[in-house]
C-alpha cells in the first residue's frame, strides 16, 4: 500500500456536526458514538474532513448553509446524513470508507477543480455582473438599527482626513466578490469599521436552528438580530424522552465547551450518555459536579454575564447562577430543566443581552440560556396563539 493511503488509514476522521431543528436526539447519539471512537469534533470546515448532518434540513436556508459549508471542506472529505438515531453507526462507517477511498477522493477533487474553472471562466465573461450581490444585501442587517446611544457618537479622531477617502473607496466596488467593511459610530466615540457576522446555523456548541446576526466593532457586539430557521418539531422534541438531569448535562457540556474547558466538556457528555443508559456512577457524578462548582476559572468566565431579572424563572440571574441551577438539576435537587416557555423568553431577551457585550461573553450568554428551539413555533404561529 502506498504511503498516502497508509497515513490516511492511521488517522482518525474529524467530523463537523450540523444539527437541524428536531435533530437533537440524533446529535446526542452521534456525539456518543464519536466520543467512544475518539473522533474529536471539528470547529470549522478547514479543520474537518467529515460532515455529519443530524436531522433533516427541511428548510432552504439550512440546506443552503450545509452545501456552502460542504464546499469549503478541503480534500479529502466525506459526508454523512443521519435521519434516524439508529442509523448513526452505519452512516458514519459508510462515510469513513468513502473518506479512505482514494479513487473516490481523486474524482471528487477533479470534479471540484473542474467546477471552479468553469465558474472562473463565467466570471470573466460577465465582469461586472456580481451574481451574488443581491443575496449579499438581503443578508445584511439593517444599518443603524440598534446603535447604542452614545453622546459623542460619530466623531472619530480621524474623521477629518479620512472622510474624503472613504467616499472614494465606496466607489471602488467589490474585491473578490465581497465588499470592504464600512465605518459606524461606537459607544467610545471612535467610528471604525463594523463587521457583520452571523452566529449559526452551522456553529459548534450552538442551539440548532438559531441564527444571530451581530454587528461587531472590534470584539464588541453592537447590535444583534435573532432569527430561527427550520421547521418546528414540537412533537419530536429531542428532550421529551430525556431525563432532566441528562438534558441539563447536555447544556452544561455546551457551556463548558464555549468556556474553553474541553476536558470537562468531554466528561459532561460521557456522564450524560451514562445517565441515558442508566449506567452512571453516582459518586463520579458527584465528584464532577463538585469540581465544576469549585472551579474559579469557570466562575471567572461566567460571573456577571447575561444578567436577567426574571424572578421564578429558570433563566433568572447571571450565567453563573444559571449553570449552578443546572447542576442542582443534575444532582436531583431541582426538578425541571428548561421549564415553561423557556425558549420563547430566551429568544425575546437575547438581543438586549448581547448588545454591548464582548463576543466571547456573548457566546457564554447564549450557551447559558441554551434555548431548545425544537419546540418553538414560528413567530407568526406564536402570535396567533397569543
Amino acid at each position, binding site marked *: 500500500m502506498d504511503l*498516502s493511503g497508509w*497515513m*490516511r488509514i*492511521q*488517522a*482518525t476522521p*474529524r467530523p463537523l456536526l450540523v444539527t437541524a431543528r428536531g435533530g437533537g436526539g440524533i446529535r446526542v447519539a452521534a456525539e456518543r458514538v464519536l*466520543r*467512544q471512537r*475518539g473522533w*474529536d469534533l471539528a*470547529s*470549522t470546515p*478547514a*479543520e474537518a*474532513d467529515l460532515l455529519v448532518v443530524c436531522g433533516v434540513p427541511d428548510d432552504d436556508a439550512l440546506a443552503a448553509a450545509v452545501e456552502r459549508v460542504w464546499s*469549503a471542506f*478541503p*480534500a*479529502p472529505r466525506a459526508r454523512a446524513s443521519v435521519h434516524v438515531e439508529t442509523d448513526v453507526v452505519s452512516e458514519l462507517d459508510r462515510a469513513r470508507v468513502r473518506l479512505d477511498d482514494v479513487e473516490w477522493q481523486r474524482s471528487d*477533487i477533479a470534479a471540484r477543480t473542474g467546477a471552479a474553472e468553469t465558474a472562473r471562466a463565467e466570471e470573466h465573461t460577465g465582469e461586472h455582473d456580481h451574481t451574488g450581490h443581491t443575496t449579499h444585501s438581503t443578508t445584511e442587517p439593517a444599518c443603524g438599527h440598534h446603535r447604542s446611544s452614545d453622546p459623542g457618537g460619530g466623531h472619530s479622531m480621524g474623521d477629518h482626513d479620512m472622510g474624503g477617502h472613504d467616499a472614494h473607496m465606496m466607489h471602488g466596488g467589490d*474585491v*473578490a*466578490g*465581497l465588499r470592504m467593511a464600512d465605518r459606524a459610530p461606537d459607544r467610545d466615540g471612535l467610528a471604525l469599521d463594523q*463587521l457583520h*457576522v452571523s452566529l449559526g446555523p452551522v*456553529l*459548534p*456548541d450552538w442551539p440548532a436552528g438559531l441564527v444571530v446576526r451581530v454587528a*461587531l466593532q*472590534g*470584539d464588541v457586539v453592537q447590535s444583534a438580530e435573532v432569527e430561527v430557521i427550520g421547521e418546528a418539531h414540537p412533537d419530536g422534541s429531542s428532550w421529551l424522552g430525556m431525563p432532566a438531569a441528562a438534558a441539563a448535562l447536555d447544556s452544561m457540556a455546551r457551556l*463548558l*465547551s*464555549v*468556556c*474553553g*474547558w*474541553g*476536558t*470537562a466538556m*468531554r*466528561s459532561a*457528555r*460521557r456522564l450524560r450518555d*451514562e445517565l441515558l443508559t442508566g449506567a452512571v456512577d453516582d459518586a463520579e457524578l458527584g465528584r464532577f459536579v463538585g469540581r465544576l462548582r469549585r*472551579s474559579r*476559572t*469557570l466562575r*471567572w*468566565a461566567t460571573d456577571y454575564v447575561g444578567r436577567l431579572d426574571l424572578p421564578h424563572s429558570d433563566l433568572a440571574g447571571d450565567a453563573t447562577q444559571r449553570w449552578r441551577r443546572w447542576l442542582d438539576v443534575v444532582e436531583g435537587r431541582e426538578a425541571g430543566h428548561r421549564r415553561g416557555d423557556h425558549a420563547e423568553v430566551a429568544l425575546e431577551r437575547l438581543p438586549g443581552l448581547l448588545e454591548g457585550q*464582548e*463576543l*466571547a*461573553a456573548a*457566546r*457564554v450568554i447564549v450557551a447559558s440560556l441554551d434555548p431548545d428551539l425544537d419546540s418553538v413555533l414560528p413567530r407568526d404561529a406564536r402570535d396567533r396563539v397569543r
Partner: protein
Amino acid sequence: MNAVSQGPTWTVLLVPVLLGVLALCGAAFARVLDARADGRGISGGVLAAPLAESGRLLLQQRRAVVASDRLLARTGVVLVPVAAVLAALVVPLGDRTASDLSIGIVWFNAMEVVTWAALWMAGWGSNSVWGLLGGYRFVVQGLSYELPHMFALITVATGAGSLRVSDAVAAQESLWFVVWMPVAFVAFLLSALALSFSGPFDTATGRDIVGGVLAEYSGVDRLLLVAGRWLMLSAAAAMSVPLFLGGSGGPLLPGWLWTLVKAVAVLGLLVWVRSRTATLRMDRFAEFGWLVLIPLTLLQALVVAVVVVGMTGGM
C-alpha cells in the same frame, strides 16, 4: 554537579529533535487526559494520536480565503514553530548546552515574543473574522502576561547575577531557585501557558470563535501552527528547568536524565492544569495581570535583590 559548558556544534541539531520528542510527549499526555474524560481506554492508539493527526494534516488539502494576505499568513504560520525551536536553543541538557549565549535569558524572551507577531500575522492574513479576533486576542494576552514573565526572568538573572543560563544553573548548586523564588516560578509557568496560547490562555484559538487563528487553516499550515504551540509549550517547560529547578542537579541519575525528567514533569503539570481550567477571558485577565501579577512579581524581585545584596555584603 558539573558546570554547564557548550557542547560540540552538532549538538545544535539535537535541539529540534529533542524538543519535538518532548512536544509529542506533551500532546500524547493531553490525549490521554482527553481519553480518560471520554471514558475510553488508554491504548497505543491514544498515545500515537498526535502522530496520526499530523499525518492526517499532511494529507489534507491546503486552503485559503479569497483575497487573504497569503504572504503575511505564510510568514506567521512558519514563524510559530521556528520561534519555538529557537527559544529552546539556550536550554542545557545535563552539563552540555547547544549554545551558551551570554544573554541567554534575554534570547529566550526575544524568541518567545516572536509569537506575538507570528500569531497576529496568521490571524490577519487569513482574512476571516475568527482569525482577526484570535490574532487581536493574542496581542492583548501578550500585553497582560509579558511583564510578569519578564520580571520572573529578571528575578532569576538577579539571583544568578548574570543573563547566562549556565550561570543561573551554577548559582543553584546549593539551593534551587524555585525554593526562594516561588512567585516568580508560578508566574513563569503561567506565562509558559500564555506564550504558547494553550490551556487557560487559549483565547486566540478559542472554541467560542471556532478556533480563532486556526479557523481557516487546513493541512500542513494548520499542522505547523498546532505543532508550534506544542513546541513552544515544551520549550518553556524545558527552560524552567535551568531557570528554577537546578538544571541537571539531582542524586543517582546522570545529569541529562535529570534535565529530561524535570522537563517532562513540568510539561505534565502544565498539560494537567490545561485540563482542569476554563479559558481566562482577556477582558478579565488583563486587569488581573496588571494589578495582581505585576506587583507580586515585583515584590518577588525585590526580595531576591535584597537577599542577593545581603549575601554579598554590599550593604
